[in-house]
């Protein structure tokens, strides 16, 4: 059985008329790196909340269908039990800092402290996680005196350090510099190689194409398209429905109209674009 199983999931926030998620059916295997794309308001964050147990345990409203992770139904679990296995990095990293701690190190250790991880083990896990996200040099700084991207790295690190089985990331690189973004994708990719399952909302198509196994395109709360990045991210249907694509794809699409791109398939990465234009 799939590690994550969403069956006919429909969800409506309180006091709203249209469901934010409509009849979602989705199976995800252990170790997959799934990327979720879609326009503003498509339901990407709501899907994250559903996976992370915040829907329906924190946001009330009407829900039907099933959310299962590792064979356990979210409806039969409490939020406290759920978050042991599932970590969520919120879309707005500025709200994720706990406010309880004086240093970045303590901030990142906070979650481990709460679940009673012994001191020595805690220290090495925090240091390891900070190395992954490139913030070792910020350990002694106050979590409030950081730049936007540094805060986002701290927020991400405090989730990574918990080593959840399922990692849900809602636009985790939105404040990050370009090369840092690519490095974060690499780190996440490596984590999935060692068995972590990742669902990541992103707009940065070039890196999705490089690193994700599968893309889920959401539109108005439903799954509009899903499949391999190289198929989904070059599809005309996707482009015609207002999804963003990489510059490689759009330039080749235009070139194709002028007879300058000779391949059938459009490129989504630098490598594919270079191969095609060399012909």
């Amino acid at each position, binding site marked *: 059985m799939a590690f994550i199983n969403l069956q006919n999931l429909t969800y409506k926030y309180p006091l709203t008329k249209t469901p934010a998620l409509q009849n979602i059916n989705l199976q995800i295997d252990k170790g997959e790196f799934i990327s979720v794309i879609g326009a*503003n308001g498509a339901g990407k964050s709501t899907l994250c909340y559903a996976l992370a147990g915040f829907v329906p345990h924190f946001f009330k409203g009407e829900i039907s269908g099933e959310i299962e992770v590792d064979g356990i139904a979210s409806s039969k679990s409490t939020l406290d039990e759920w978050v042991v296995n599932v970590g969520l990095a919120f879309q707005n990293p500025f709200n994720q800092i706990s406010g309880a701690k004086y240093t970045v190190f303590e901030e990142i250790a906070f979650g481990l402290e709460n679940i009673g991880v012994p001191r020595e083990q805690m220290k090495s896990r925090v240091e390891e996680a900070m190395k992954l996200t490139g913030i070792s040099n910020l350990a002694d700084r106050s979590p409030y005196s950081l730049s936007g991207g540094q805060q986002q790295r701290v927020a991400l690190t405090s989730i990574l350090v918990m080593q959840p089985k399922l990692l849900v990331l809602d636009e985790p690189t939105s404040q990050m510099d370009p090369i840092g973004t690519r490095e974060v994708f690499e780190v996440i990719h490596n984590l999935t190689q060692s068995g972590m399952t990742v669902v990541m909302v992103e707009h940065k198509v070039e890196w999705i194409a490089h690193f994700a196994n599968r893309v889920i395109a959401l539109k108005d709360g439903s799954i509009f398209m899903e499949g391999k990045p190289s198929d989904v991210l070059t599809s005309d249907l996707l482009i015609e429905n*207002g999804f963003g694509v990489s510059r490689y794809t759009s330039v080749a699409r235009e070139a194709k109209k002028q007879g300058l791109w000779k391949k059938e398939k459009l490129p989504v990465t630098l490598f594919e674009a270079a191969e095609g234009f060399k012909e």
Partner: protein
Amino acid sequence: MKIEINSLHFTYPTGLEAIKGISLTINSGEQVAIVGQNGAGKTTLVRHFNGLLKPTSGSVTIGDWDTTKYSVAKLASRIGYVFQNPDEQLFSRDVLTEIEFGPKNLGYSKEKIDELVKQALVWTELTDKTETNPYDLSPTWRKMVALASIIAMDTPIVIFDEPTTGQDFVNVSRIANVIAELKKQGKTVITITHDIDFCAENFERVIALSNGKVLLDGKAHEVLGQEEILAQTYVDPPQLTRLGKVLNLKETVINQEEFLNVIVRSER
């Protein structure tokens, strides 16, 4: 209105020196993008323009005003600044009140306020959300509200701190449109961004900061082609510039039009 930055140094109360000697002139009506690594000092630099931060040494002048001699409220008539985190900026109960606040505060006439607010709403396509509480909107729309409330102030200089983060394709084009409209009106637009493709498509001049200093400053073409130097501040050239390099194109291309032109010429 000209911005002049002279040997600017800034040290936070924590002792961290974030700006380590920057001198720059930004002329009236320029469209400037500021890029660079997380923590390079981009936000710290622009917070000096509207007086939120005062130089530790050196000076910043906006037109003929030295920012140390004018209050933030006063400087707000010359400079509009859209925060990186909209939640630091928004405080009203509904979108309309939020957007009206700035122009009202500047003492414009009722007619002018109505006109400016209407234009800001149209540009950001918030017209159907005027009665909503900003905090009931998603972070992406809150960012649009923050943007609208600043452009409604009709200042000669506008600063956007990471305007496109989290925005979808349609909203990014909307923001590009706003920048183009402001340019038509002769305004200076300064935008901090990590979206290098967006930067290449919408700005004439690019300043790359690294570790509190200016690493590169020049025409978008000159700056965005310098792969090795940009890498020092964790910036990649635009996608099509990288493609052009791999294909050994003779000139640096930074957008689709240029790329296709060069390809067409080389086909002949």
